[in-house]
């Protein structure tokens, strides 16, 4: 029993990731579970908006044809799927999946679980009345200050409902705002029978989940170590091979591209990291300073020694609220003196906005190609480089509580083509789009206030 290895493969690192990856994970070699992460902080508010327009929407639509197409192979090989594709409408996601699967011949009906209860939108007022203030973790303000503008509110939930769904023999588990890492560690807890207070082993699962949750970023994508040498045309996404004792290996299918080394895995370990000794999840606090990593060669990296501590009594809540409007547009200026022309155009644009008396919370100008990325600036360019720039993109963004002001801004870029500095192009995309800003409000809530309402329900196609 202790020798048993459970393989959890990563198939999507975000909504919009490479669609071939999950298919290759299923078809190229042995795996036990396929995890698919679709949700980022911004995603929930987008999905909530979609659901307002159409009650049947509000989930990651890509998931449906993907899983429907894979169903015969998933059932044939006994591979189970865990995904947060449900967004703000996991039930709707399952209905769409059942409709799609109905047209596909399968060996037996697909059993699909829906986990719900993370969505706090409908009970936000009663939670506030009960004294759950959900203060902003950064500013300390209570949620009541922006209550009327809240667009989405979801608790990051842990492994328990996913484990329950797997016990109920679901082939596919669809959740809402499950913690990204739980999509990997819930099946590991289930398969290895780890106790709910086995903090070290659960922490090992969290580390595995962190490696899996960004897809190819752990297998050679985005690597700064020998990036020219990595074959990324058809990369293998990461696969975790977890032993019962909480030690594991990171690998990929041998027949696919990509690369698994100490460098690719360590880069992913430090990605989006805060305090490494306090990596807080709903099911434990993992200590990343205890990770022992060994490169075994041949695309295998061994991880051991992971320690964890008791989980906290709180869950994190991801809240999105409407916070004004923004738009960003650009024009391209060509040499000679490309940067000087772009700077002049920016001055003219700002003067015109000023004359119109428009109020903005922020106007931001960046000169793409002359130092717009972090730590760089046109001011830092040596004179010879500045003079030699073949072209520069002037990129201007504005933000305001006044939608009309932002709308008017979008009409002030095009006039610069005829009534501005010379050698200008790059306006083919047309007027910039006015976007509503969905600001992020991170908060904490008592675990019990959420977990008493979590539901798991399995049905088959």
């Amino acid at each position, binding site marked *: 029993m202790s020798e048993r290895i459970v393989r959890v493969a990563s198939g999507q690192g975000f909504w919009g990731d490479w669609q071939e990856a999950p298919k290759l994970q299923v078809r190229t070699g042995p795996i036990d579970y396929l995890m698919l992460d679709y949700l980022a902080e911004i995603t929930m508010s987008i999905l909530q908006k979609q659901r307002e327009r159409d009650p049947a929407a509000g989930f990651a639509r890509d998931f449906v044809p993907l899983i429907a197409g894979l169903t015969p192979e998933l059932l044939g090989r006994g591979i189970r799927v865990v995904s947060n594709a449900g967004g703000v409408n996991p039930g709707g996601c399952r209905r769409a999946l059942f409709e799609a699967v109905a047209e596909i011949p399968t060996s037996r009906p697909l059993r699909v679980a829906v986990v719900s209860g993370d969505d706090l939108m409908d009970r936000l007022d009663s939670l506030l009345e009960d004294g759950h203030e959900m203060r902003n973790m950064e500013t300390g303000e209570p949620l009541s200050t922006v209550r009327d503008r809240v667009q989405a509110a979801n608790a990051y939930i842990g492994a328990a409902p996913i484990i329950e769904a797997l016990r109920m023999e679901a082939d596919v588990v669809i959740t809402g705002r499950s913690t990204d890492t739980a999509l990997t560690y819930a099946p590991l807890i289930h398969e290895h029978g780890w106790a709910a207070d086995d903090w070290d082993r659960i922490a090992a699962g969290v580390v595995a989940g962190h490696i899996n949750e960004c897809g190819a970023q752990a297998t050679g994508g985005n690597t*700064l170590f020998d990036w020219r040498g990595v074959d990324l045309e058809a990369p293998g996404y990461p696969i975790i091979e977890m032993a019962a004792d909480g030690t594991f290996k990171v690998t990929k299918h041998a027949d696919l591209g990509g690369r698994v*080394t100490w460098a690719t895995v*360590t880069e992913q*370990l*430090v990605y989006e990291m805060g305090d490494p000794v306090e990596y807080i999840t709903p099911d434990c606090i993992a200590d990343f300073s205890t990770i022992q990593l060994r490169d075994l060669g041949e695309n295998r990296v061994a991880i051991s020694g992971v320690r964890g501590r008791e989980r906290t009594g709180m869950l994190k809540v991801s809240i999105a609220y409407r916070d004004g409007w923004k738009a960003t547009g650009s024009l391209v200026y060509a040499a000679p003196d490309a940067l000087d022309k772009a700077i002049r155009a920016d001055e003219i644009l700002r003067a015109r906005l000023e004359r119109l008396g428009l109020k903005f919370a922020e106007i931001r100008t960046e000169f793409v190609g002359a130092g717009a990325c*972090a730590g760089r600036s046109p001011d830092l360019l040596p004179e010879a480089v500045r003079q030699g720039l073949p072209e520069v993109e002037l*990129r201007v963004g504005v933000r305001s509580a006044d939608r009309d002001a932002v709308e008017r801004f979008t009409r002030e870029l095009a006039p610069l083509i005829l009534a501005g500095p010379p050698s200008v192009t790059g306006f083919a995309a047309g007027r910039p789009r006015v976007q509503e800003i969905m600001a992020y409000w991170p908060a904490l809530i008592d675990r019990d206030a959420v977990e008493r309402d979590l539901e798991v329900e399995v049905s088959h196609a």
Partner: protein
Amino acid sequence: MKIRLERIAIARSGDKGDAANVGVIALIADAWPILVREVTEARVGEHFAAVCKGRVERFELPNLGALNFLLHESLGGGGTVSLMLDAQGKTFASSLLELEIEAAEEIVSLCDRVRTGELPGR
């Protein structure tokens, strides 16, 4: 000798709200003390002075030969509020690797051999 940080380290960056995170990883175990000595909160703050409006926090991960930095108030409000081209801090990592540091020549040449694949690295 004076070198750019990229000779002895790799890095990756991302966002945590309005803070950018930059993890820096030594190519060999012997390069780790150089990171600790040279890549200080003060120097990182200076390097990102144009974008970092808040404080810089450094965390040590000797087990991974890594340092993790949080650069607070660096992403123009973060998430969907930000008007920045790099609102998620993705390019902070390669920028930090341009930092000039002092390093012993023998360590640098060992790191060069890791890069060419002659030596295995960490």
